[in-house]
């Protein structure tokens, strides 16, 4: 029940918010166009939060809540990892694909080529190991600059990974112990800040090398 006295949106940006929090007061922002992304909803003059997460703002006028879930909602132009379940290709094989069409209620349409038609590393992923995490961790692994976990691991080990925005990550390396090391490091890094990730990776590498 603490109302923040200041009306500037800076008080909530990059802060963790909880459903019900009112993050913007439109009556003080007349004549501005605001774009609302996921997790926010308009109730007459107030913009309130629907999902727990971090409030983000991108200039000039976009607001959204970044949250991490286990369940993935398909979105056009996302790259995801899928497992074949039906006849055309080999059932059970892992594919790195791109979402072409997605709408509620329908199965999304996927493609093994990028927008211009080239193969560009899409397609079948052989060997390696796939595990599932949350959507938030996938976004963090794909963020630029490279997240500290991957950077730290990449300095000492050689491996390849494919990250799907649906929460699936595929790792392949020369030896099974490297694969397990990389997979465990990534799974442990979900809740850690940047510095803690670096420390965690260093400790893991020290133990096993």
């Amino acid at each position, binding site marked *: 029940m603490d109302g923040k006295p200041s009306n500037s949106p800076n008080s909530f940006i990059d802060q963790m918010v909880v459903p019900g929090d009112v993050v913007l007061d439109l009556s003080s922002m007349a004549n501005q166009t605001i774009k609302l992304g996921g997790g926010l*909803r308009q109730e007459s003059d107030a913009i309130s939060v629907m999902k727990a997460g971090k409030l983000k703002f991108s200039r000039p006028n976009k607001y959204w809540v970044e949250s991490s879930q286990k369940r993935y909602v398909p979105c056009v132009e996302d790259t995801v990892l899928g497992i074949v379940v039906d006849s055309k290709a080999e059932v059970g094989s892992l594919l790195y694909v791109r979402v072409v069409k997605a709408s509620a209620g329908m199965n999304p349409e996927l493609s093994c080529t990028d927008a211009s038609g080239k193969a560009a590393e899409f397609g079948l992923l052989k060997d390696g190991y796939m595990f599932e995490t949350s959507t938030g961790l996938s976004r963090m692994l794909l963020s630029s600059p490279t997240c500290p976990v991957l950077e730290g691991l990449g300095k000492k080990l050689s491996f390849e990974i494919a990250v799907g925005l649906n929460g699936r990550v595929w790792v392949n390396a020369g030896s099974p112990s490297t694969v397990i090391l990389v997979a465990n490091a990534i799974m442990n890094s979900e809740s850690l800040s940047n510095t803690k990730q670096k420390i965690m990776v260093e400790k893991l590498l020290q133990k096993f090398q």
Partner: protein
Amino acid sequence: MEIDRPDGRTRNQLRPLACSRNILNRAHGSARWSQGDTIVLAAVYGPKTGTRKNENPEKASIEVIWKPRTGQVGKAEKEYEMILKRTLQSICVLTINQNTTTTVILQVVNDDGSLLPCAINAACAALVDAGIPVRHLAVAICCAMAGSGSVILDPTKLEEQQKMEAFSYLVFHNSVLSMLPEGSLHVDGEPMEHGIITSVTHGVISVDDYLYCLERGHAASAKISDFLRRSLQSHAPSDPSKAA
């Protein structure tokens, strides 16, 4: 006059709260909420396409399944399911995922009094863990009348059986942080947050006593609300957060 409660609490003191989220592998969202020794595990699956026959396909529907610790499902469980379903329907934004069903399953791990409020809190945390859009959170508390007009909060099973003449389960809004100036979310001169989402009473209570219960319950709900906020904000969903 302070009543001596068997576990040494004061009248308005709650038991230690603990909440862990994301504990089940297959559920889209899960939470385990405990108040003292009362523990409830909630799992959320969904939204899945399609609604049941009696439900309105223009809205998302919520299905609640209550699993007691032992024994078969009977009338009491059905009543709990109905209360939970109505409470959760009022906090979820039903116009977003139209024609879908979200299933909430509650498993009673241990019942040491104040079971339904514990379940409501667990269900709410699990819904947030699953990313189901909700308007605001629900915070539930049990207020018991222990004879001679005194109200105790969060009774244990022993207190429920021995001392109480009547009790009420109250569900309030969570306390929100707001950008709005004070007074804009008021309806009829009262802040929105003083509104009740659900109230279930057993036994005979006078009107004054009931209003006093509401007041005490509302004050305690602010504490539970703070705890819920802290536990939802922690980045490590599988680490338990605790508060005494």
